[in-house]
C-alpha cells in the first residue's frame, strides 16, 4: 500500500515519461496496441522496435504500448517523442519500417518523412487504399 506522499513521488517520477511536450528529457516510443492496432499488425511492430532498440543499445528510450488513438484506419501507429522535438506520428507501420524509424529517427535524429502523413486537400494521400476500398 502506498501513502499519499508515495503516490505523489511516483507522479513526479513518471511525469517525464509521459510528457508530450518538447521539454522532456528522454525519448518515448509509443505503439498503438488497442484491438484496432493489434488487428492491423502492431505486435510485430512493437517487437521489432524493442529488438532494434536493444540491438543498438539505446539508453534513455522507453518503448510503451498505448490504447486507441482514434484513427483506426491508419494503424499500426507509432509515435516518437524526442527531447526538444515535436511529437512525430508514423502511420501504417510494419516491422521493417519500424526498424528504420528506430535507426534513423530515434538513433540518428532524422525524421523518416516517408512514413508520416501526407495531407493533400484534407486527405491523407499516402493512404490511398482508403478512399477506394
Amino acid at each position, binding site marked *: 500500500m502506498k501513502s*499519499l506522499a508515495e503516490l505523489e513521488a511516483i507522479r513526479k517520477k*513518471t511525469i517525464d515519461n509521459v510528457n508530450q511536450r518538447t521539454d522532456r528529457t528522454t525519448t518515448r516510443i509509443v505503439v498503438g496496441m*488497442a484491438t484496432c492496432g493489434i488487428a492491423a499488425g502492431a505486435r510485430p511492430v512493437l517487437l521489432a522496435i524493442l529488438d532494434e532498440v536493444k540491438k543498438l543499445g539505446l539508453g534513455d528510450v522507453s518503448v510503451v504500448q498505448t490504447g486507441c488513438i482514434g484513427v483506426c484506419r491508419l494503424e499500426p501507429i507509432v509515435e516518437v517523442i524526442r527531447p526538444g522535438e*515535436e*511529437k512525430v506520428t508514423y502511420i501504417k507501420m510494419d516491422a521493417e519500417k519500424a526498424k528504420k524509424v528506430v535507426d534513423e529517427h530515434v538513433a540518428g535524429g532524422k525524421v523518416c*518523412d516517408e512514413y*508520416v502523413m501526407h*495531407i493533400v*486537400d484534407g486527405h491523407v494521400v499516402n493512404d490511398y487504399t482508403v478512399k477506394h476500398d
Partner: protein
Amino acid sequence: MEFYRSQVLVCGGTGCTSSGSNDICAALKSELAAKGLDKEVEVVKTGCFGLCELGPIVIVYPEGAFYSQVKVEDVTELVEEHLLKGRIVKRLVYHDAIEDDKIKSLNKVGFYAKQERIALKNCGVIDPENIDEYLAFDGYKALEKALTQMTPLDVINEMKKSGLRGRGGGGFPTGLKWEFAYKQNNPQKYIICNADEGDPGAFMDRSVLEGDPHSVLEAMAIGGYAIGANMGFIYVRAEYPIAVKRLEVAIDQAREYGLLGKNIFETGFDFDVEIRLGAGAFVCGEETALIHSIEGHRGMPTPKPPFPAVSGLWGKPTVINNVETYANIPQIINKGADWFASIGTEKSKGTKVFALGGKITNTGLVEIPMGTTLREVIYEMGGGIPNNKKFKAVQTGGPSGGCITAESLDTPIEYDTLVALGSMMGSGGMIVMDEDNCMVDVARFFLDFTREESCGKCTPCRVGTKRMLEMLEKITEGKATLEDLDKLEKLALSIKTSALCGLGQTAPNPVLSTLKYFRDEYEAHVVDKKCPSGVCKALLQYTIVDDVCKKCGLCVKACPVGAISGKVKEQFIIDQDKCVKCGACMEKCPFKAIVKK
C-alpha cells in the same frame, strides 16, 4: 547496392498497363537519362495499387507524392519539376490538390482540431498497463480529493451540478442516480460498470477500457464512496479479451498500491472491484438483465420500478453506469463541475465519443463537445463519404436508434435534438450510409439483429420483432402490398408501447424512422417491385447492354451457373430464370456492359 535519393513507383498492374503505364515507365527512364538523373532516381514498376480507375498511378518517394491519371506528355514536367527541382506537380496529384503538406504529428490533423478529449484524454497517450503513467497525469487525485476533502453528499452535488448524463444510451442524469442510491438506508450497496457494449459498429467503451482502464476504476471507487458501496462489478463482454486483460492488470496494480481494497488512503473507506464476463447477449446491456446475469441467473429484464438504485444486485441498492460515463468522472472531480458544465450545450453537458463507421473516410473514434453538428462530425472529422458518393443518411443509436437524413445534418448533437429527429444518442455508434444503401435493407438488418437478440420473455418483442422481420423480408422480395406497409407501421407502434424493456421498446425505431424519411423507397419495393439502390437481390436484374458489349465472351466464363449464352462476336443474353444474381459477370466485364437494375 546502389543508392538512389528518390524512387518513382509506376503501377504495372493490369489496369494501369492497359492505360499506358509501360509507356510512362519508358518515358520516365529516357527523360531521367537525358537530365542525367538516372543514377539518382530509380524507376520501379510495382503491382496493382487498387486504384485502377484513376490509373496510371505514379508515386514518388520519399515524398510519397501520389499522382493519378498520368499521361506520357506529363512525364517531362514531372521529371523537371519534381525530380529535378523538388516541387510536387500539384496538378497531377490525386484529387485536385490545393494544399500539400507533410504532417508530422497526428495532433495537427483536421481530424483532431475540433475534438475535445475528456473521456479519451489518456487513450493513445499512456501505457494502459502501467499505473505509474496514469498517476503521472493526475491519476487517482480525484479519488484522493473525494475521500479526503469531500463528503459523499459533496460528491453527489458536484455530479449534479456538472450536468453529466449517462453515456450508455438512456441519458439519465448521473448525479440524480447516485442520489437515489445514497438515500437508501441499507448497509450493503453496489456499484456496477456496464461494459456490455453490444450495438453493431460501436466500440467506444472497448477503447476506453483498453486505453485507460484506471479512469474507470477510479470513478467506480468515487461512486462507491458517494453512495456508500464497498464493492463494484465490471460487467464486460467476453468478446473483448484485450479490455478484460488490461482491466485485470489495472485492478491488480490498484490493489497493490492500495487504491482498491481496505482503508483506502487511511480514510476507513473500503472498496474493491471484480470483473464479470458477459456471454455475448445484447439484452444483458439492459440494466436489470445485466444484474440478473451477474447474480448467475438467465439474463432477462424485469419491469421497473423497482429501479436498481432502490433494489438492484441481490436486492441491494445498486448504481449502474456506463464505461464512458465513468471515464468523465475523475476529471469532473479534479477540475470542478463548473468546468465540465461550461462544455457542451444547455441541456447536454460535456462531450460524447462516437464510433464512426460505414461509408465514411475516417473510420475511427472521435470525441466532440455536445452541440457539434452532424455535418461537422461527418464531413470535417470523418472526412466525408468515399468515392464521391452522395450522403443518404446517418444511423445513430444502433438497433435502438433511427436514421437522420441530409436535411438534418446541421442539427447540433444533443440528447434531445436527436430524439426529436426520431433517433437517439444511444451509446455512440454512428453509421454513415450513402446512395448505395437500401433503407429497407438497413431496417431489415437491424430487425434481424433485435429478433435474434430478443430474450423471449415478453410477447411483443419475441413475436412482434419476428413478424416485423417477416414483413420486411416480404418487402425486400417484392411480395408485399401497400397494406403491409400500414400493418408494419401499426405493429411497430404497438411494440414500442407494449414491450417489457428498452430492447423491445426501441426495436421498432429503425423501421419507424426509415418509414418516416424513406417511405418512397419502401413504396418502390412494393409498387414498382424495384430496389432503387440496387441492394435487394430478388428485385434486381442483370442485363447486358448490347451497344456497349464487345462480345468477348468473358462473362460466359465468369458465370458459375451457366446462365449466359451466346457466341463470340454475336449477341450475349442472360437467362433471368437461371441467374443467381451473384454479380460475377458484372465484375469480370472489362467494358462495363453489364448493368444491374
